[in-house]
C-alpha cells in the first residue's frame, strides 16, 4: 500500500481528495438550504420544512429530484452562448475556490504525508481573490444573456456592487498579510498559533514574540464586504424579489437554476472558510495547546447530541422518523465513543473539528443576518461601500503598518 502511494501518490491522492471534497461540499450545500429554511422559520415563529422525512431532513433530496425532473424552458431571443455559459462559470469558479483552502494541518495516512486540502499553493490568498474577481462574469452574463429587463438590471447592479466591494474586501486583508508576511493560507494559520490559544488569533492579535496587532477593524470590514461579494442579505440587491422578480436568474429553471444556487452556497462556504482562516486561527483550537483535556471536546459534543437525537427519534410521530432519527443518533453516539477510545484518530480530527466548528458558526451567522436585517437601498449600498468601508479599510492598513513598524524598532 505504502509503495504504491509513494510511487503514484501525486496522482491518486489529489483525485481522491477532489472526489471527497466535491461530495462533502455538495451535501453540505444541500443541508445548508435545509438549515437556512429551518433557522429563518424559527426566527419568524414558523416550523419550516417538516413534511418530507423527520424534521424535513429529506427535503434537500426532494428538492434535488425536483431540479432534475423540472422542465427547462429557454426564453426567446436569449444570447445562447452567454445564457448557457453563465451557470457553468458560476458553479465552476465557486468549486475551484475551495481547492486552495487548507481545512487542517498536514496529515499522514499509510505513511504518506499530505496537506489537508487539495492544493497547497504559496499564493493561495491571491488565487482566491483572482477567482472572486472572475466570479462577477457569471452573474453579469446571466443577466445580460437572458433577454429580460429585470435580469439585465440585476446583472448591472451585481457588477457595480461586486466592483465596489472587491476593493474593500482586498484591502481589509492587507493587515493580516502584513502580520503574516506571506500569501499562503497555511502559513497565515500557523503564524496565529501560540501558547495563549485564541488570544493569539489575528482578531485579538496578542502575541509576545513577533509584530502583531489586533485586526478587529479588518475583520469587520472583511465580513461586510464578503457578504456583499456573495450577494447575500442585506446586500442581495441583484436578486431583490420585490423589485426585480428574481434578478439575474429570473429566466433560469431546473438544473441551470440549481447551478446558480449551488454556486451561491459554495461561495458562502468558501468565504466563511477564508474568514475563519484569516481572523479566527483556521484549524487552531481556541484553548492553549497545554490543555489536553479539551481534546475530548468532540466526544463531549457528539455523544450527548447522538443520545438526544435517539431520545427525540423514539417519540417521533411518523414510523419513518422513528427509524431514521434513532439511526442517525446512534451514528453520532458511535462516532463520539470511537473518538474517545482511539486517541490517534481523535488527535487527527482536532484540526478539522475546530475548522468546521468555526465555519459552521459563520454560516449560521449568515443565515441569522438574513432572518434579521432588511435590504439596503441601492444608493445606500454605494455610499456605504465607497464612503465608509473603503476609507476604514485603508485606515486599518495604515494603522497596522505603523504599529508593526513601531514594534519592530
Amino acid at each position: 500500500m505504502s509503495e504504491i502511494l509513494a510511487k503514484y501518490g501525486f496522482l491518486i491522492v489529489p483525485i481522491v481528495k477532489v472526489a471527497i471534497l466535491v461530495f462533502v461540499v455538495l451535501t453540505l450545500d444541500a443541508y445548508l438550504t435545509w438549515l437556512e429554511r429551518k433557522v429563518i422559520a424559527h426566527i419568524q415563529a414558523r416550523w419550516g420544512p417538516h413534511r418530507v422525512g423527520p424534521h424535513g431532513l429529506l427535503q434537500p433530496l426532494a428538492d434535488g429530484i425536483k431540479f432534475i425532473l423540472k422542465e427547462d424552458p429557454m426564453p426567446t431571443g436569449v444570447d445562447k452562448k452567454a445564457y448557457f455559459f453563465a451557470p457553468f462559470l458560476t458553479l465552476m469558479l465557486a468549486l475551484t475556490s475551495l481547492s486552495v483552502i487548507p481545512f487542517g494541518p498536514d496529515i499522514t495516512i499509510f505513511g504518506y504525508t499530505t496537506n489537508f486540502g487539495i492544493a497547497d499553493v504559496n499564493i493561495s490568498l491571491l488565487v482566491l481573490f483572482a477567482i472572486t474577481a472572475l466570479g462577477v462574469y457569471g452573474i453579469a452574463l446571466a443577466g445580460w444573456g437572458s433577454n429580460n429587463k429585470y435580469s439585465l438590471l440585476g446583472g448591472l447592479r451585481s457588477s457595480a456592487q461586486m466592483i465596489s466591494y472587491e476593493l474593500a474586501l482586498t484591502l481589509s486583508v492587507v493587515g493580516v498579510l502584513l502580520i503574516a508576511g506571506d500569501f499562503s493560507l497555511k502559513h497565515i494559520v500557523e503564524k496565529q498559533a501560540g501558547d495563549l490559544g485564541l488570544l493569539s488569533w489575528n482578531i485579538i492579535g496578542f502575541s509576545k514574540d513577533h509584530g502583531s496587532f489586533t485586526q478587529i477593524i479588518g475583520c469587520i470590514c472583511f465580513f461586510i464586504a464578503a457578504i456583499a461579494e456573495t450577494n447575500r442579505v442585506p446586500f442581495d440587491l441583484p436578486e431583490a424579489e420585490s423589485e426585480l422578480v428574481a434578478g439575474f436568474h429570473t429566466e433560469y429553471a431546473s438544473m441551470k437554476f440549481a447551478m446558480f444556487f449551488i454556486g451561491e452556497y459554495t461561495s458562502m462556504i468558501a468565504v466563511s472558510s477564508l474568514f475563519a482562516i484569516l481572523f479566527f486561527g483556521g484549524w487552531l483550537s481556541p484553548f492553549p495547546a497545554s490543555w489536553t483535556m479539551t481534546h475530548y471536546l468532540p466526544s463531549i459534543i457528539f455523544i450527548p447530541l447522538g443520545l438526544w437525537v435517539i431520545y427525540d427519534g423514539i417519540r417521533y410521530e411518523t414510523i419513518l422518523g422513528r427509524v431514521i432519527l434513532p439511526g442517525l443518533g446512534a451514528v453520532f453516539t458511535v462516532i463520539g465513543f470511537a473518538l474517545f477510545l482511539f486517541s490517534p484518530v481523535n488527535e487527527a480530527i482536532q484540526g478539522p473539528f475546530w475548522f468546521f466548528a468555526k465555519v459552521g458558526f459563520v454560516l449560521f451567522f449568515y443565515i441569522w443576518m438574513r432572518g434579521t436585517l432588511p435590504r439596503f437601498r441601492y444608493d445606500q449600498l454605494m455610499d456605504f461601500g465607497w464612503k465608509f468601508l473603503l476609507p476604514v479599510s485603508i485606515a486599518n492598513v495604515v494603522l497596522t503598518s505603523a504599529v508593526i513598524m513601531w514594534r519592530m524598532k
Partner: protein
Amino acid sequence: MISGVLVIFFVLAGLAVLGAVSLILQSHPIHSALSLILVMVSLAGLYLLMGAEFIAAVQIIVYGGAVMVLFIFVIMLLNAGVEERTNFSKMATFGGVPLALALGCIIAVAIARSSGRLPAPAADGAMSSTRGLSNLLFSEFVYPFELTSFLILVAILGAIVLAQREN
C-alpha cells in the same frame, strides 16, 4: 522529446491566439470582450508557467477581473447591439495589409535572430517571489513606479473634473 511544460505552453498559447482572433471576428461587443478575457487568463497561465505566480495572479485580478468587468459593464449599460460588417476600406487593403505583413516580418526576424541568446526565466530569482518583486519595485524601480502612480492620479482627477462639469 516533448515535455509536459511544452504541451501546456502550446495549449495556453493556442488559447491566447484563438481568443485574440475571436476578439476581432466576433460581431457582438460582449462576445469580443469575453474573447479578450480568454486572452488575459491564458496569458496568466503562461506567466505561471514561467514561475511568476504573483504576476499571474495579479494579471487575472487586474486585467481579467477589474478592467474587463468595467468593459462588460459599459457595454451592458450602453446596451450595444450587433455590429454591422462593412467592406474593407481602400485604406485597409492598400495600406494596412502590407504594413501588417511588414510588422510580422520584423517580429519574426527579431525572434529568429535572438533565439538561443535570451536568458532563461529565473526559477528562484527575484521575479518569482513576491518579496523579491516588491524589493525591486521599491528600490531599483521606485521612480518609474511612483511616476506611474502619479499618472493614475492625474487620470482620476481628470475623470472627476469631467464628471463634475455638468453641475
